[in-house]
């Protein structure tokens, strides 16, 4: 049998089960909340970044530019309206514009948007087919990975679309969509959509007796890539007289995250407060134990334990508490993120699956352990300074 300091510290911490549990739970919640905020902020900005990759401008109907971006890049908001195809084509052909990807939508299948576009849309996000082939004719559909998983649609299946973007009451029973392909998961908005040609969207509504002349055909938006940086300044001028506007995704998303930031900061402050309370709890628990354990410490001195080593024992006890609490916090934040992801996925249809430990979290844990050590060191110093002789005399 061989004792060691870690074992003794472990047993000492285990002796006060309630106090230890309180310190652990408080610290775990503090660290967990901060790390959850870090994680969700990162997931959110990753999701945003993945989806605006290389889209310089979005052309759509006048209205809120943020709404235009949210609706057409992320597909989480209603579109601002439709624009005339002829007007949009003028912008796409502008010499400063390298490429324009048209988007047209207005129907859904079980809450997932059916988006009419070209192969360029899928190619832009690096979407690859898991099975089947790309859409060619009208009413041929390639389903996103997430849609396929949730609805169970597979190649060869047929379905009706519903009018609108959410609601499933007004079903177009006269036009049958046929699934010809399924995409691999890409972690982008592609996963959440059903893809078809732009003309499919027109034909769905023509069937309603809303026959549309080719020159009056409308689309919802165009994702633009610029050839010349001046496009950002020039394009708004060329469309001033139309019902169209262009918005810059990067600027709108920056604005959005800044607004988010206020809420995030409040939550962060609350989390830091919880952490602070947990350090106070560790401090109190070490301090309180010391009053009761003064005799034990004096006893260890009589058996040859130096002040330095007893101090290290107390540090080790604080370290065990803060390390345990922090690691528990990391586990908690992951559980929280998984729960949050379920919630957010339903609402915003984004998949958050990457929950590896971030470097920022290691800094957080390091900091928490350090402060835990300090919280133990402060009462520890006064504890090992005690007069052994007097403590033992008082005990008699």
């Amino acid at each position, binding site marked *: *049998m*061989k*004792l*060691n300091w870690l074992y*003794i510290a472990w*047993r*000492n911490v*285990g*002796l006060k089960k309630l106090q230890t549990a309180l310190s652990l739970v408080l610290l775990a919640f503090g660290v967990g909340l901060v790390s959850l905020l870090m994680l969700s902020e990162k997931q959110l900005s990753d999701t945003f970044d993945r989806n605006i990759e290389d889209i310089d401008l979005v052309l759509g109907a006048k209205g809120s530019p943020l709404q235009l971006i949210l609706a057409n890049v992320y597909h989480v908001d209603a579109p601002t309206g439709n624009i005339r195809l002829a007007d949009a084509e003028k912008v796409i052909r502008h010499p400063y514009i390298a490429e324009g990807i048209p988007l047209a939508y207005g129907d859904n299948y079980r809450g997932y948007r059916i988006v009419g576009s070209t192969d360029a849309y899928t190619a832009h996000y690096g979407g690859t087919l898991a099975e089947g082939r790309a859409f060619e004719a009208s009413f041929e559909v390639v389903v996103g990975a997430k849609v396929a998983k949730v609805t169970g649609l597979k190649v060869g299946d047929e379905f009706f679309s519903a009018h609108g973007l959410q609601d499933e009451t007004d079903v177009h029973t006269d036009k049958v969509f046929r699934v010809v392909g399924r995409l691999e998961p890409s972690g982008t908005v592609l996963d959440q959509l059903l893809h078809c040609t732009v003309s499919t969207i027109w034909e769905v509504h023509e069937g309603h007796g809303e026959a549309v002349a080719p020159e009056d055909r409308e689309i919802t938006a165009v994702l633009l890539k610029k050839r010349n940086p001046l496009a950002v300044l020039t394009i708004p001028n060329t469309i001033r007289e139309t019902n169209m506007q262009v918005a810059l995704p990067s600027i709108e998303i920056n604005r959005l995250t800044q607004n988010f930031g206020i809420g995030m900061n409040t939550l962060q402050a609350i989390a830091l407060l919880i952490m602070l309370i947990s350090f106070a709890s560790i401090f109190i628990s070490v301090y309180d134990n010391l009053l009761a354990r003064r*005799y*034990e410490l*004096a*006893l*260890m*001195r*009589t*058996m*040859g*334990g*130096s*002040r*330095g*080593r007893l101090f290290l024992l107390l540090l080790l006890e604080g370290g065990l508490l803060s390390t345990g609490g922090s690691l528990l916090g990391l586990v908690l934040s992951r559980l929280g993120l998984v729960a949050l992801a379920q919630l957010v996925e339903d609402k915003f249809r984004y998949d958050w699956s990457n929950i590896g430990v971030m470097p920022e979290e290691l800094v957080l844990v390091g900091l928490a352990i350090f402060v835990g050590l300090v919280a133990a060191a402060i009462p520890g110093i006064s504890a090992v300074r005690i007069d*052994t*002789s007097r403590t*033992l*005399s008082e*005990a*008699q």
Partner: protein
Amino acid sequence: MIRTSNLAFQYQKDSPLLTFPDVECPAQGQLLLLGASGCGKTSLLHLLCGMLQPTQGTVNINGRALDRMTEAERDAFRGQHIGIVFQKSHFLQSLTVLENLAMPAFLHGAAFDKREGLRLLEQLGIAHKANSRPRDLSVGEQQRAGIARALIHRPALVLADEPTSALDDGSTAAVMDLLETQATAAGATLVIVTHDQRLKDRFGNRLDLTAQPQPA
């Protein structure tokens, strides 16, 4: 083995100076230091084991001058060469009795022989409590566990501070027998500090602390 000369101690600058008669005890000898409460018995014991540093005079244990060592050196020396039995035994409450026995060896970096520990507990009649928590022991069992801990690392000197004051006559005799036989078996010098008059006749070699004239 133990030799002090002109030992005096003062707790604070304005507190009275406690003076002590010279204490001498040969190796493996046994010595009783007898004195009424408040005469500085415990201070003397703490001076003898280096927990207190004398204001004047010298303390020699095993040929080493404790008064010339640093605090850390005294801690280390005490851990290796001295075992202390307290009036009321204190233990590390989070550890078992056997683990408490392993503590002295651990603190001065020696190996602990578990069989040796169990044998000692056996001799003291508390082997069945080896894996119990200290607080689950009766007062008498705690006192015996305290003796085991003072002897386990085979110290050259065992100091006992009022080892019997909490015990009845029967237990007193039993504990003293144990202390004496175990100290003898371990080849340790035994010094007992007490006000307990019941112990007076057990020891030929005794020093009455109160009998000494106290200089003003």
